[in-house]
């Protein structure tokens, strides 16, 4: 793929109870949003092991989006609080290692917020386009 028609690859971890349903909502409401994300359904955003995120980035994903329930709505009570701490620490880790922390994003999207899911996806893809390809991908295989 040449640099000109480069499209960011995004891995999105969506919580089953809110954000995945939110993505469904975006779909059933026929809201248009960029097709760059590979959405992975997880039971809770708290299930997303930081190792998953690093592995996605290591395998040359240009951005990782984690979407979970709003605070207080977590099906497992405190899963999303744990995620919020982990993501903040991971951003610090990425910064120290030399990857832009903006490549990792955490959003709270409820099952009713199809529009928010689409908007998030749009803005995230735009942001990653500004950042350019994952530096690990330079010269690597597609």
């Amino acid at each position, binding site marked *: 793929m040449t640099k000109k028609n480069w499209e960011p690859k995004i891995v999105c971890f969506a919580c089953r109870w809110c954000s995945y349903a939110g993505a469904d909502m975006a779909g059933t409401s026929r809201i248009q949003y960029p097709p760059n994300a590979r959405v992975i359904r997880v039971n809770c955003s708290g299930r997303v092991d930081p*190792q998953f995120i690093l592995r996605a980035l290591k395998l040359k994903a240009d951005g990782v989006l984690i979407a979970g329930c709003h605070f207080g709505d977590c099906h497992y009570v405190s899963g999303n*609080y*744990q995620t919020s701490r982990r993501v903040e620490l991971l951003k610090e880790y990425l910064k120290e290692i030399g990857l832009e922390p903006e490549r990792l994003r955490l959003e709270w999207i409820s099952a009713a917020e199809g529009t928010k899911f689409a908007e998030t996806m749009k803005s995230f893809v735009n942001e990653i386009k500004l950042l350019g390809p994952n530096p690990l991908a330079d010269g690597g295989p597609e």
Partner: protein
Amino acid sequence: MTKPSLAVETLSICSGCEIAILDLHQALPGVLDAIDLKYIQVLMDFREPPKEGVTVGFVSGGVRNEEQVELLHKIRERSQILVAFGACSAFGGIPGLANLHTKDELLQEVYIDTVSTVNPKGVIPHKVVPPLLEEVHPISDFVKVDYVLPGCPPPPKLIAELVTCLLEGKEFRLEPKTVCDQCPLTKDEKSVTNFIRWGTKKIDPERCLLEQGFQCLGPVTQGGCEARCPTALAPCRGCFGPTESVHDQAAKMIGAIGSVVIQDPTKAPAPEQIVKEIPDLVGTYLRFSLAASTFKKALHTNVVKMKKGVKA
């Protein structure tokens, strides 16, 4: 039957691992009766492992320069069984933290910038000394490793166990347990409200150090040391490296920090606050295993760009 022979190769290391062999104390004469020690630089004046080959080769230390790559290949060829001996040869160890900087940055710092250096002409050694590699590597980056005995240094008890296994022709394997599994401190409710650095607060000698807010790497570190640091009330620094199910100690530790904080959201510290309370995140969580972690090194060009605030 001739005695099995042993060679110990020393690469980029402090020699503490060799001293750990001497720490076998009273078991040492027995070991020396059973094994023919052919080559160990701290005791003998040889430059390379014996040409006729040895049964077992221990390699201590990571790979930092080109000469060490050569030496490493030599001992691999000349020994039937190769053991990565100590944290440095297994994961790069503390010298592996140099991977946060480029080779040129390191040379500049050591030979020119440090206050105590007198080097008016600004000469960086380049003749006679072997050239540095761009980064520190664990030995498994270059050769096949048969057994790994981590630790900084490996505890004498495990060295004895490894030697016994090798003599009896058995497989040597560390139990898939974490340091926490072997730790005698009491684990209670996870209710950390702030993280503190070791030595800044009085330690409760009964309670789990992580739950007291210290940065203890017990949950993500391979056991086998019988939790010698937490037993002495010093937090685990992770010298045994990641367990089999962990690939990146830092990532797993970040996961643990996320869940060790008190559940009640009104009492829990803000995520930004937690980041502030853990200075030098990579240096703390990947102290021994940066060279074998997910990214292995910092992406230097990007670090510089980010410091300058330039968008890629």
